[in-house]
C-alpha cells in the first residue's frame, strides 16, 4: 500500500519513504499550491510528496519565502492545497469543512506558532485548558490538573496564573507548547517556534521538543535555524516551493529510520 504513495522523483524522497510497510501518519501526495493575486499566480509549492511516520522529529528548513510555512499549513489544514491531497492518520483533511476541520485539528494536532498566539485575556493555565474545553477532551474535573502537569513539563508551574503579557517571550512559547499538548494530540506542528527567541531561550524550547519526541510524539518543526534543524531526526529542505532534500541526521535516529537502515 505504501508503494502507491511513493513519489515519482525518488532521489528527493527521504529514506523514511522506503522505511516499511507501516502506515505513514502524515502523507502528502502531489501537492501544488498556487496563490492567485491581482498580480498573477505565484506557485508556492510544486509537486510535494512526503510521508511522516509516528515518532519522527522532522525539521523543515528553507529560506524565507521558500514555501516551508505553506507546506506545514497544508498539514495543519490552515491552508488547502490547490491540487493533491493530504492524509493525516487516514483522514483526507481537505475534505473537511472549516468548522469540522477546526474540531478535528483540536484533537489531533498541536500547533505552535512563531508569535506564540496565546490569548492575552486568559492566564497561562487557562490558555492550556482552553483546547480541552473546546474539544471536550478529558472530564472537566481533570482538566485543571492536567494543565498544571503540562505547565510543569515546560517548567512554568510557578507562572500558571500569570497573564501572557506578564511573562517573557520564551515562557510564552513554552506555554504555547503546553497548550499544543493539551488534548494529547499525536502530532505537534511548530512554525518557527524559536524565530522570535534569543539563542538561550530557543535552546530551552528546542529541548522541550526533544523531550516530547522521547515520549513518542511526532513533531514537525519549521525553522530557518540550520543548526537546530540538524539536531532533529530528519530534515527536509525546501527551496522555491520544491522539496530539494530529505535527509536523516546522525543524531537521535528514531525507530522508523533504523528500520530504513535495515532494509
Amino acid at each position, binding site marked *: 500500500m505504501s508503494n502507491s504513495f511513493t513519489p515519482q522523483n525518488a532521489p528527493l524522497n527521504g529514506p523514511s519513504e522506503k522505511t516499511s510497510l507501516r502506515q505513514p501518519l502524515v502523507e502528502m501526495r502531489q501537492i501544488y499550491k498556487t496563490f492567485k493575486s491581482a498580480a498573477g499566480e505565484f506557485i508556492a509549492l510544486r509537486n510535494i510528496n512526503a510521508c511522516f511516520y509516528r515518532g519522527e522529529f522532522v525539521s523543515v528548513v528553507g529560506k524565507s519565502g521558500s514555501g516551508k510555512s505553506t507546506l506545514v499549513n497544508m498539514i495543519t489544514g*490552515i491552508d*488547502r492545497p490547490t491540487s493533491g491531497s493530504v492524509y493525516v492518520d487516514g483522514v483526507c483533511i481537505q475534505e473537511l469543512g472549516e468548522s469540522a476541520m477546526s474540531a478535528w485539528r483540536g484533537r489531533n494536532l498541536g500547533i505552535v506558532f512563531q508569535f506564540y498566539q496565546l490569548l492575552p485575556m486568559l492566564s497561562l493555565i487557562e490558555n492550556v*485548558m*482552553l483546547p480541552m474545553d*473546546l474539544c471536550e477532551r478529558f472530564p472537566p474535573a481533570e482538566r485543571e490538573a492536567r494543565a498544571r502537569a503540562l505547565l510543569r513539563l515546560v517548567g512554568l508551574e510557578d507562572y500558571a496564573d500569570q*497573564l501572557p*503579557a*506578564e511573562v517573557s517571550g520564551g515562557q510564552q512559547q513554552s506555554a504555547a507548547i503546553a497548550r499544543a499538548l493539551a488534548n494529547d494530540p499525536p502530532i505537534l506542528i511548530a512554525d518557527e517556534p524559536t524565530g522570535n527567541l534569543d539563542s538561550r531561550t530557543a535552546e530551552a524550547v528546542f529541548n522541550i521538543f526533544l523531550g516530547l519526541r522521547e515520549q513518542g510524539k511526532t513533531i514537525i518543526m519549521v525553522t530557518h535555524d540550520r543548526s537546530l534543524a540538524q539536531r532533529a531526526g530528519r530534515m527536509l529542505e525546501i527551496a522555491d516551493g520544491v522539496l530539494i532534500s530529505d535527509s536523516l541526521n546522525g543524531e537521535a535516529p528514531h525507530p522508523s529510520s533504523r528500520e530504513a537502515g535495515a532494509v
Partner: protein
Amino acid sequence: MMRPRVRKILADLWGNRLRSLLVIASITVGLFAIGVIATLHQVMTEDLRLGYAAANPPNIRIVAAPFDQGMVDHLRKVEGVRQAEGLRGFDARLESEPGEWIGIEFKAVPQDEVRQIAQVRLVKGKWPPGDREVVIEQYKFADIHAQLGEWITIELPSGERRPLKVVGVVSDQTVGAFASGPGFFLAPVQGYINQETVEWLQQDLPYTYNMLYLTVDGDANNEEHLWEVANRVRDELERAGGAVINIAVRGSYDHPNRRYLEALAIVLVLLGFLIVFLSGFLITNTMQAIIQQQMQQIGILKTLGSRRYQIILLYMGLILIFGAVAALAAAPLAYQVAFQRVVPLAQTINMAYRGPRFLPGVILLQVGMGLLAPQLAALAPILQGSRISVREALSGIRESQQARRSWFDRMILRLRGFSRPTLISIRNTFRRKGRLILTLVTLSLGGAIFIATFNVQVSMDRYVDMVSRYFLADVNLTLTRPERTLEIIQMLSDLPGVAYIEAWGTARSEMILPDGSTGENVQLLAPPANSRLVDPVLIEGRWVKPGDQNAIVLNERFMSDFPYLRVGDTLRLRLNGKETDWVIVGYFQLAGRSSGLLAYTSRESLLRVLNQPDKAMTYRIVAEGEDLSKEEQEALGRAIEARMAARGIRVLDVTTGSYLSNSAAQGFAALTGFLLFLASLTALVGSIGLTGAMSLNVMERTREIGVLRAIGATNRILMRLVLTEGMLIGFLSWIIATLAAIPISKLLSDSISLALFGNPSTLAYTPTGFLLWLGAVLILSALASILPARNATRLTIREVLAYE
C-alpha cells in the same frame, strides 16, 4: 494632481465603505434628530404665535346684557379701541347619534357678515354660513358624527329642536382663549351661524349681541394696557345703559395652547441636548476604533517622515468629510420627517400650521454641528492615536497596555466556574476599558432616554386617570333652570341603576383685584362639602371640609397668574353683582395652566353667599356597579333624560363622566404621542451606536478567532463566544440605563409638569420601557455581533494569522 495624503483620505473613505457608512450613519442619526427637533421647535413656536396673531384675535372680550349694533359703533370710539364687533353666543345641544346629545357652543357672526376680529380659516365647505346653516370648528368636528351637507338636530335650552345644515369646517384660533371658558381641550363643539339663524333659533331680541370683541391700539400684549382700555369701555357701556357681566383680556400672540407648546418645547430642547451628547459619545467611540485599525498606517506615515500635526490634520480631514456627508444626508431627511410630524400635532393643539418651508437656521445648525461636533468628539482618539510611537504602531503592541493589573482586572481574573470560552468573552468585554466605558455610556444614555420616555408617558397617563377623579360621576345632568334639589333627587333615586346623586352648585364670578378693579372670570364649582364625587389632586393646602365658611380651593392657573396669592389669603369675588370674600384653603391640579380660572367651594357656602333656596341646576349621578363603560354611562344618561322629560323638567345637558375626563386629557395625549416619537428617535441613535460599536469590537477580534480556530474551535463555539460578549455588553448597558433612567425620567417629567401645571410631577414607572429596551438591546447586540463574526469565521486561518 491631488496631494497623496488627500488622496489617502478619500481612498480610506471609499476603501472601507462599511466602516465609513457606520461613522456617517452615527453622525447622520444625531444630526437628523437635532434637525427634526430644531425644525419642530421653530415651526411650532412661530406658527402658534403668528397663526394666532394672524387671526386678529380679540384683546378684550366683554360679556354683557343684550346690546345692539349702535352700541358697538359707539364703543368703537372709546380711546384705545381699534376694532369692535358684537357677537351673539349661546349654548345648546346637538344630537350626535340618535338619542345622544352633546353640548355645542354657538357664535353668531356679525350682521354685516364680515368678521374682522377672530377670523376663522376655512378648512372645507363654505364660509360664512347662510340661513339655517352651521359651520363647525375642526377640532371637535368628528364628535358631531355628521358630514358636510348633512343636517344636525339642535336642542335649545327651551327644549325645542331645530335642524341645521352643516356647510363648512373652519379652524378658529381663539377656541378656549378666554379664562372664563374651560380651556381649549375642554371646550365643547363650536358652531358658527349667522344672525338670521340666531333669530330663527332663539326667536327673541332680534339683532342684539351679548358679547363684545375688541382689539386695541398700542401695545396689545401688555395686560395692564388691555385692562385700562377694557375698563374704559365698561364705563362707557354702563353709562350708556348696558350691563357688563364679565370682562376678559388676552394678548395678540397669546395662543390658548401656548403652555402646551412650552411644555413640548422644553421636552424637545432637553432631548435634543441629550441626543447631541449621545451622538458625541458615539462618534468618539467609532473614531477610537478606526484610529485603532489605522495604527499601522499611522506608523508607516511616521516612518516616511510625517509629523504629528500632519497626522492629526489628516484624520480631521477625514472626519470633516464624514461630517459634511452626514449633514448632507441628515438635513433633507430631518426636513421630511419633521414636517410630516407637525401636521397631526398642529391639529391637536389647534395650531395654524403654515406649511413646510426652508429654515436656514436649522440647516445652519445641522451643518455647523455636522462639521464641528464630530471634530470635538474625535479629538481625544485622534490626539491619542497620533501620539503613539512608530515602533508600537508598527508592531501593534501598546507598551502602556502591558502588564498592569488593576483591582478590577484581578477580580475578573479570579472569576471561577466558567468555561474557558466563556471566560474569554467575559475578559474580552473588560479588556479595553476605555472603549467599554464609551460604548456603555452611549448605549446606556440612549437606553435611559428611551426608558424615561415610557415612564413619562405612563406618568402622564396616570395623571389623566387622576383627572378623571374630578369626574367620578357617571352622568352629569344640567337643567335649564334651578330646580328644588330634594325633588330632583327623589325623582332620580328610584330610577333603576342609579346608586347615588349629588346636587352641585355652579357660578360664574369675577375676581376683584387688590386695587379694587375687576379681574378675570372665575368658574366656581360647588359640590356638597362632603362630596363623594371629587377626589382632587392637591398641590398645596387642603380641600373644602364640611363646616368651612367661605372656603375656596383654586386651580393651578391661579398659581401661575397670581403668584402672590397664598393659602390662607383672602380672595374677593363678585357673584351676582355682589362682592364677597373667600378664604383660600388650598390649590389643586386639573387640566393644566392653559385651562381657565377654576375654583371649588362647598355648595353650602355658595348657597349662603347667594342667599338662595335649596335649588340646583347641576346634578351628578353615580350608577350601581363600578367602572361603567362609556356605552353604559350613555344608556344611563338616556334613562335620566327620559325620566326628566316625563316629569316635565327641561334638561340643558346630559354628559357622561368619561366624556369629560377624555376631553380634559386630550392635550396630554398629544404630548405622550409626541414623547413616543422622540423615544423611537433616541432608540434609533442608540441602536446605530450599538451596532457600530459591536461590529468594530468583533472586527478587532479577528486574530483571536483565527487562533481559536487553530486550536480546535468550531463555528458554534466561535459564534457563542462573540454573542456572549455582545450580549454581556448589551446587558451591562441595560443595567446602567435602568439606573440612569430614574433621574432622566424625573427630569423629563418635571419639565413637562412644570410647563403644564407649574409644579413638579408625580412620577410613575412602567416596566414597559425597561423590558422593551432589554429586548431591543439584546437583539441588537446579538445582530451587531453575529454579522461581523460570520465574516470572521469565513476567513481562513492563514489570512487571519498572516502576521502583518
